[in-house]
């Protein structure tokens, strides 16, 4: 079994286990929180492709997420589009936006990319929040084109309420799980493919990689587009799942929360983002009682992880395994097969 097959099998196994949760637990809170975990995990798994594998420190992921969410909400609100159609449209718009962004930051490196993408996200946020001209005037009050400060609500549903009655949230749970599973499998395929190797080569020795005909341009656009699709889709699903979209999706604490997931789990590893998302969801749950102190806790987690374990928990684990195999290899000098 190749590494890719092993990872995909593991992923399907975990998904299968997760699919059992609504059958075992009838606590609604657990199920809905896990649905949120699916959404955030999808975002960070795809962010990891850009940041960890591609080595491009883009902060635009929440903007892409917001584009997906806003497109879905606006299509539903203004045109009554069915959510099943609106979700992929939102994801595709995020792809278009992301490819344009990828073109824009092709020449930049390191922190300049972070600044550019942060600026783009901020422009989007400010245009939405500062727009106070009424586009329509429904009975509920003035509504700017992009929802202004209060955003959109009641724009549509996936129809689970009619289908499943009071258990509608279970339907959404499986939609979220399906999105995460597909996003995860795509991420594994990308990492364990020539594209993943190409990125590794471009990172480790750019000149040699370019001399061997690896086109940074092509790969960068691919990864921007691909990750934007799932990020946008996660945003669309977030809109449908919460039933409301507002400028809060742009908020800095959101960005911090997601960034911490990647850092804690392990940048550039296959399972790191998921592990990080899981841990931070639990951490947030534990710090729920603390109120404003929660942000201090999040900040501390981020700083400690960046300083002490740059490759996150998964990276630490991998190093440990490597160290142990190295030690046994020294103690017992047997011919050993090369494994990657």
């Amino acid at each position, binding site marked *: 079994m190749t590494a890719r097959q092993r990872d995909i099998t593991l992923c399907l196994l975990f998904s299968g286990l997760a699919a059992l949760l609504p059958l075992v637990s009838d606590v609604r809170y657990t199920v809905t929180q896990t649905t949120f975990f699916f959404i955030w995990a999808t975002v960070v798994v795809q962010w990891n492709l850009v940041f960890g594998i591609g080595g491009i*420190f883009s902060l635009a992921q929440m903007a892409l997420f917001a584009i997906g969410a806003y497109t879905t909400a606006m299509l539903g609100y203004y045109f009554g589009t069915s959510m099943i159609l609106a979700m992929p449209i939102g994801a595709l718009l995020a792809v278009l936006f992301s490819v344009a962004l990828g073109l*824009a*930051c092709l*020449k*930049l490196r*390191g*922190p*300049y990319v*972070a*600044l*550019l993408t*942060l*600026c*783009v996200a*901020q*422009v989007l946020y*400010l*245009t939405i929040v*500062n727009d*106070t001209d009424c586009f329509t005037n429904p009975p509920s009050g003035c509504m700017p084109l992009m929802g202004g400060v209060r955003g959109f609500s009641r724009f549509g549903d996936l129809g689970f309420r009619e289908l499943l009655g009071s258990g509608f949230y279970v339907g959404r749970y499986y939609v979220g799980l399906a999105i995460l599973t597909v996003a995860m499998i795509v991420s594994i395929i990308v990492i364990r493919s020539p594209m993943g190797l190409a990125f590794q080569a471009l990172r480790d*020795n*750019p*000149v040699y990689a370019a001399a061997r005909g690896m086109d940074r341009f092509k790969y960068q656009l691919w990864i921007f587009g691909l990750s934007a699709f799932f990020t946008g889709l996660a945003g669309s699903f977030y809109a449908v799942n919460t039933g409301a979209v507002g400028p809060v999706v742009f908020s*800095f*604490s959101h960005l*911090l929360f997601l*960034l*911490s997931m990647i*850092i804690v789990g392990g940048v550039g590893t296959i399972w790191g983002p998921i592990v990080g998302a899981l841990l931070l969801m639990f951490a947030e749950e534990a710090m729920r009682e603390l109120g*404003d*102190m929660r*942000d*201090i806790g*999040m*900040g*501390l*987690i*981020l*700083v400690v992880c*960046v*300083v*002490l374990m*740059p490759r996150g928990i998964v990276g630490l684990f991998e190093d440990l395994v490597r160290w142990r195999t190295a030690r046994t290899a020294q103690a017992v000098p047997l011919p050993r097969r090369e494994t990657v």
Partner: protein
Amino acid sequence: MDTILQILASGLTLGAMYAISTAGLALVFGAMNMLNMSHGAILALGGYLSYFAVGGMGLPAPVGVVFAVLVCAAVGVLIYQIVARPMLRSANFETRIFIATIGVGVILESIILETFGPQPKPQPVSMPGSLTLAGVHLPYQNLMILGIAMLLMAALGFALQKTRIGRAIRATAQNRDAAQLMGVPIGYVYALVLAISGGLAAVSGITISSLSSLLPNMGADPMLKAFIICVVAGLGSLPGSVMAALFIGVLEAIVQYVFGVRFSFALLLILVIIVLIGRPQGVFGRVQGVRL
């Protein structure tokens, strides 16, 4: 004519405030390739410390300012010792320090929020009254900000060009390894640069809050603007960033007058996006050869 002069006057005041906070950021980036995302929180901390010292303890205003500057400089040194130093030699230092300082910023901001509460507070260090010159209304406060900014920038420029430690900072910025081989204590230089940056952030926080009011998240906008100015000027170029700060301040005043306040920030951000795409090294930045 009067309107134009008035716009120019308020634009220069804005630019002067931006210059103070930008100089600190540019200095740190130039010396150690570190984008300090906690700069905004340190700025807010400076404003609140002066509020605490002058408004709360009843100390005279200059003492309050010095107190705020010293504490913020100490915070800068702490950030170096605890966060920056352990990862200084690592491969992805630029990205890692960026992320780590985001965390530091959030911690500082939350501490301010916990201590002083979310309501806006007035900044006690300010100068009432104003002067009308050739039909232009000039509050003393604005004149003082302009004066302080010019004084600080001149002092910083002199220190960097003429003093021994200034030479050490410039040498470290040019080539860390060579500087170290020549006996420059680079750890000391880094700590000092972050301390200067922290102190400048405190002054910037006090001046900005004296024109509006104190809020725990008041540093976010000035920090983003300082980054914009740094990028437009070319990260790490100090004289360039002071010029760019004044230019951006005047530009912002014009945009605010012509298009209205709510579009000014978005237009500035679009400007920086255009500059980054067209001239990634900034207007005053040198093209750096890629080191492999």
